[in-house]
C-alpha cells in the first residue's frame, strides 16, 4: 500500500515540475505552440472528424467561397490551391483533403486588415475532394472541389 502512495506522489511531483518549466518558458517553442496547434484536428483521418475537432460541426455550403485549383494535378506532391472568402467577417480559412492520411492540411487565421484570400501548395495522396472551410462571425461555411491526381504525393 505504501508503495502505491509513493508512486502517486512521485507522479504528482513530476507533473508540477513540468508545469513549472512550461510557465517559466524553459521548454521548447514546440511545446508553447502545442496549445495553439490543434493536435486532434490535425490527427483526424477524415473530414468529418477534423470538422468535429475544429468545432465546426456541420458547416453550411457557400457559394461565397471561391476556390482556385486545377481539375487535374499531374503531380500530387505539389498542387497549387487558393481560396478566397467573400463572406463578411472572415476569421479563418482551412483546407481539408478528404482522402489524405490526415484530412486537415492547413488553417490560416485572418486578422482584420488582411484580405480573406490565401494561396499555397499541398500534397494529395490520390484523386480526392478538397474542402475549404471558412469561419466568419463564429459560423462555419464550406465549399469543395474534386482534384484528379495522376501521381500521388504521399507515397515513397
Amino acid at each position, binding site marked *: 500500500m505504501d508503495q502505491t502512495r509513493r508512486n502517486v506522489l512521485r507522479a504528482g511531483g513530476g507533473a508540477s515540475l513540468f508545469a513549472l518549466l512550461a510557465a517559466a518558458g524553459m521548454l*521548447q*517553442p*514546440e511545446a508553447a*505552440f502545442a496549445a*495553439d*496547434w*490543434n493536435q486532434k484536428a*490535425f490527427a483526424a483521418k477524415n473530414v468529418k472528424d477534423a470538422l468535429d475537432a475544429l468545432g465546426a460541426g456541420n458547416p453550411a455550403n457557400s457559394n461565397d467561397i471561391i476556390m482556385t485549383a486545377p481539375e487535374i494535378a499531374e503531380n500530387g*506532391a*505539389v*498542387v*497549387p490551391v*487558393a481560396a478566397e472568402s467573400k463572406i463578411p467577417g472572415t476569421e479563418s480559412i482551412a483546407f481539408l*483533403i478528404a482522402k*489524405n*492520411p*490526415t484530412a*486537415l*492540411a*492547413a*488553417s*490560416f*487565421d*485572418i*486578422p482584420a*486588415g*488582411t*484580405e480573406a*484570400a*490565401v*494561396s*499555397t*501548395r*499541398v*500534397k494529395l495522396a490520390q484523386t480526392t475532394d478538397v474542402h475549404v472551410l471558412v469561419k466568419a462571425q463564429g459560423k462555419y461555411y464550406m465549399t469543395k472541389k474534386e482534384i484528379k491526381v495522376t501521381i500521388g*504525393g*504521399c*507515397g*515513397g
Partner: protein
Amino acid sequence: MADPMRIRAKAKDGGVNVKILMAHEMETGQRKDSAGKPIPAHFIQHVSVTWQGKVVLSANWGPAISKNPFLEFDFKGGKKGDKIQVTWTDNKGDTRTDEATIN
C-alpha cells in the same frame, strides 16, 4: 539551421501582396527509407507574418503542405520601405525568422 526564406512583398492599391517561399523538407511521416524504416515526420507547424508588430497572418500547418512551402496573401496598410517579418516553427522545435522590405 535551415536555409533562408525567399520573401517578396510588393505594395499595390493601398495594400501589400506577400509571397513567401520557405526551405523545408515537410516530411510527412508516411514514407519509408530504403531499409523499410519509417522516416519520421518533420514539418512546419506554425507560420506567422508580422508588420509593425502586428500579426497580419498566422497559420497552422500539417504535413500535407508541399515540400519547400509557398504562401501568398494580401494585407492592407503597409507601404514601401516598411519591413515585414516571417517566422516558422516546425514539429522538432526548429524555428527561423526572416525579414523583407516592402517595395
